[in-house]
């Protein structure tokens, strides 16, 4: 009997779809790494000519000085963009974006926000995103595209001057790049807090279930 039971269990395991397929998990963690390097080195680059009356403490920036930070930023940029393209293409062609992130309804977002803040939001089924998750995940995708485009606009304001002009010119594009970074950092703070509050979401993003 027990001999039968073991192959039976193994045999049925793949039939349960993973909460996150392997490509999502791989691209998620590569992206996490690239984003951390981009933000840390970006803060050091910011410090060379701050837009506001503050600088980032050197203890939390990467690259040691401007040249080191630029080397890191323009190396990690390739990982960010290539991995991001793989993620976007697979998200679209597999239908994952459509099925997981949509629809997003304002009433549901408000109701789920209220439920989350009062501790009444259910996290039982991780395979279905609640309305707040849908809004945040699709929102950070849009901000991710903005941060890359504004980055290209300030990297190549002559070669890609049409894009730079679209973003309000070189100086304005620097602010766009900064605020897009700030939005991503705000997302990350909430994202990491929620992963710690509901640790099984972290497990799902590592082993799939």
């Amino acid at each position, binding site marked *: 009997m027990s001999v039968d039971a073991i192959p039976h269990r193994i045999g049925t395991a793949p039939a349960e779809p993973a909460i996150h397929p392997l490509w999502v998990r791989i691209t998620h963690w590569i992206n996490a790494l690239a984003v*951390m390097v981009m933000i840390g080195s970006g803060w050091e680059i*910011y410090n*060379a000519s701050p837009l506001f009356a503050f600088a980032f403490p050197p203890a939390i*920036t*990467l690259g040691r000085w*401007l040249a*080191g930070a630029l*080397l890191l930023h323009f*190396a990690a940029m390739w990982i960010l963009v290539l991995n991001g393209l793989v993620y976007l293409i697979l998200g679209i062609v597999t239908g994952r974006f459509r099925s997981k992130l949509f629809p997003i309804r304002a009433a549901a977002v408000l109701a789920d926000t209220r439920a989350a803040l009062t501790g009444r939001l259910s996290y039982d089924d991780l395979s279905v995103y609640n309305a707040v998750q849908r809004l945040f995940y699709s929102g950070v995708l849009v901000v991710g595209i903005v941060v890359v485009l504004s980055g290209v606009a300030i990297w190549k304001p*002559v070669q890609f001057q049409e894009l730079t002009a679209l973003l309000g010119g070189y100086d304005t594009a620097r602010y766009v790049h900064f605020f897009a970074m700030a939005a991503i950092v705000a997302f990350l703070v909430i994202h990491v807090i929620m992963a710690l509050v509901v640790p099984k979401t972290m497990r799902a993003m590592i082993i799939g279930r």
Partner: protein
Amino acid sequence: MNRRHPAGVDPKLLIKDAVGLLPDPARRLFLRGGASLGALALLSGCDIVDSTSAERALIRISYFNDRVQGWLFNPNKLAPSYPESAVTRPFPFNAYYPEDDAPEVEKEDYKLEVGGMVENKKSWSLDELYALPQETQITRHICVEGWSAIGKWTGTPLREFLRRVGADTRAKYVWFRCADTYSTSIDMASALHPQTQITFRFAGDILPRKYGFPMKVRIPTKLGFKNPKHVMELAVTDKYLGGYWEDQGYNWFSGV
């Protein structure tokens, strides 16, 4: 962390103002330090990262980025021009030393030396240079630090000068040596760009000492540090000669 920055010194100020005053070997170790090693450990997926090999890997990626930028560079794409009213006043002074330490070049003694792969290696006096046809541009100077300023520069297109000295424009680089300890080098495609200029005037006046008297090179398709001031010598060469900042880790192509 204290290898480069003495206690109590704001590293940001060091970067902005006095990086050139630090001893060479210390400056080259730009990635030493806990935070950066952490980042490189993440980047490479290794727990123990030899900072020298990590630096080498990043420098290799920077060389790859030079090639990508050379490929993105459109020799016919002009940097945007601005109206006179957009000129930044006062235009910022920027160097690795304070303004008072800018080199003083005597007009009478000045001779622009021309070398390398050119037919005519005779040097040029300032009066000979001033007699060349001149153009004016109002373009944006973009610093590697991120700030930018709009200036008005007048001078001769470098490609016109290269034509007159019989430069071999199949060569890879044009290299510039300055009256201070500065030097830089650029790719031939950028040297031949219509807006790349050997500059004698700023905002209509003879180039003042702080902006590079008697001659600077204005390249609106490159970052500010690729625009050398107080240029004393120019050479056309196939040999990669880097430059003052490039040798310390700044990306060589640095196109915008």
